[in-house]
């Protein structure tokens, strides 16, 4: 199994279309806006993991750790 690489700056709509298994990780850490499909299809084109973390005041390191623990690589640039 290859590990999937997640970019912090991709729109979450694109991200979840490609890697839907990230969604539970996002919800667990508090980025729960993605549970509304209509919101995901609209605002999700402008929201990124980095923006979401900043908005919800979740330390970036904490987000990255959560993604690592769930078995994802994180591309930070």
């Amino acid at each position, binding site marked *: 199994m290859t590990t999937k690489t997640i970019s912090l700056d991709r729109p979450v709509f694109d991200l979840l279309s490609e890697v839907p298994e990230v969604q539970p990780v996002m919800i667990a850490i508090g980025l729960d806006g993605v549970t509304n499909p209509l919101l995901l299809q*609209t*605002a999700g084109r*402008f929201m990124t993991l980095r923006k979401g973390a*900043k*908005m*919800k005041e979740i330390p970036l390191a904490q987000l990255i750790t959560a993604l690592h623990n769930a078995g994802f690589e994180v591309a930070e640039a």
Partner: protein
Amino acid sequence: MSAADQIKHNAVYRQQKIVEILKLLHNGGSFEKAKAIFDETFDQVDVAEITSAERELIASGLNPMEIQHLCNVHAAVFKGKITDEQTTTPDQEQPGHPVQVLKLENLIIGSLLQDELLPCLKKWQQSGSDDVYLQRMRKALQDLTTIDRHYTRKENLIFPLMDKYGITAPPKVMWGVDDQIRDLIKQANKLVAQEPLPDKYVIETAIEAANKEIKEMIFKEEEIMVPMVNEVFTVADWGLIAAESDPIGYTLIAPPLPWRPTAAQLAAATPQVDSKIANELNEMAQALADQQTPGRLKIDPQVKNYKVKEFKEQLGTPAPSSASTTDTQAATAEPDPAVVRPDVATPAGSSAKEAMADYQPTQLLLNAQGQAQIAFNNGQLDLGELTGIFKVLPVDLTFVDANDQVAWFSDDGDRVFPRTKAVVGRAVINCHPPKSADRVLKILSDFHQGLRDHADFWIDFRGRRVYIRYFAVHDEQGQYAGCLEVTQDITKIQQLTGQKRLEDEPTPTVKDPAGADSEAGGDD
């Protein structure tokens, strides 16, 4: 000319230029032109000099609010200078552009939280019984309630346009959070005003909850909503938003400059619908609309038949006897009147029936001058008269058509609830906070089905007692035509006591017209 004279001359010259710039901007002149004059005049001076010129202007009686506008220009110009590649200021950073205004308000709101409310809260918690900090918290929380205007502008001006472009979910969600924030602020205000004061911890929790949500909303507005609407809004859309903003008002800032798109921008404005995202959004909107059409509120055909029949009876014209099948159908299909029969005013007595017999349906006439006259059963009005009447009616009217979309509203310049042109064509369900959507739908569905013909409410709103009534409107054939909202400020009406009769009017005295004028003027 002595050196001193020259300085003085320059100072006067600069002041003149500043006034010239302000005048230009207030008359809706181009920002770039104002900037050019500014650059030309102030290129050689430093910030301190501008500041002192501004101070002089205030001392010489210029309204400080005007100065604030100048500071905006000044800031924009200064910004252009430090990022050298930028020769023109982007539209959305120009003073008065709705995005600039939104961000400026957010800056002030953020600062009110960060630099005043939270530090005061902290110091008050540490200080035992220091009343100064408590007073400052009360003041800050009071100021925070004006966030309502920021949100109301967004909800009434930006959201309708987002709807129009098929972005429907984010406004709904955001509106829900806006309302939540309004409640949190109200809650915090209540707590700090309570006697005896609740536990400090309770107050801290309330303030921090409000702070968190407000900050998150600022982020959503600027980082998500603005980029999103920039995919679809045209420069004309922004112009409409700017033009309609003043009546709603602003949060903690002076009314901004009247930004408006230039003729060239409007001419060049190809809607940005060629963008990929805009296309996708439009497709989504279309798909949603297609989905909704079959599920639309349907008029019960039985009730409709019944209503049409009833209406024709009122008019004195018997239901068409030629179609006897229709009659029998209607008879067998007639629903139990006790259940369905709406409370429609029926003419009392036979004289009313006779009057209905020569009822003239409304029609359009052209008078000798070729002007349109609307001929109602009881007389004629031309368009000017009709417009004038709607302007002075002491109630605010909003009409929602049979498709539940806002079709029209009356405007006397002082509506209880702000309405703006952006709302026309908007689905009425999106014009209400999500929390009341279910109830609005129920009333409309009852109107469509003929289950009731009005719904009345009275509320206290911003210190006024407001009477809000909704009426089902039917056309002359008895078909449902829409819903009329009638809103009235009844504060003064409720306070009326005794009577004021014509006899109580001052007796007109035969005076020269000037004297009569001044008397009328002093009446209020």
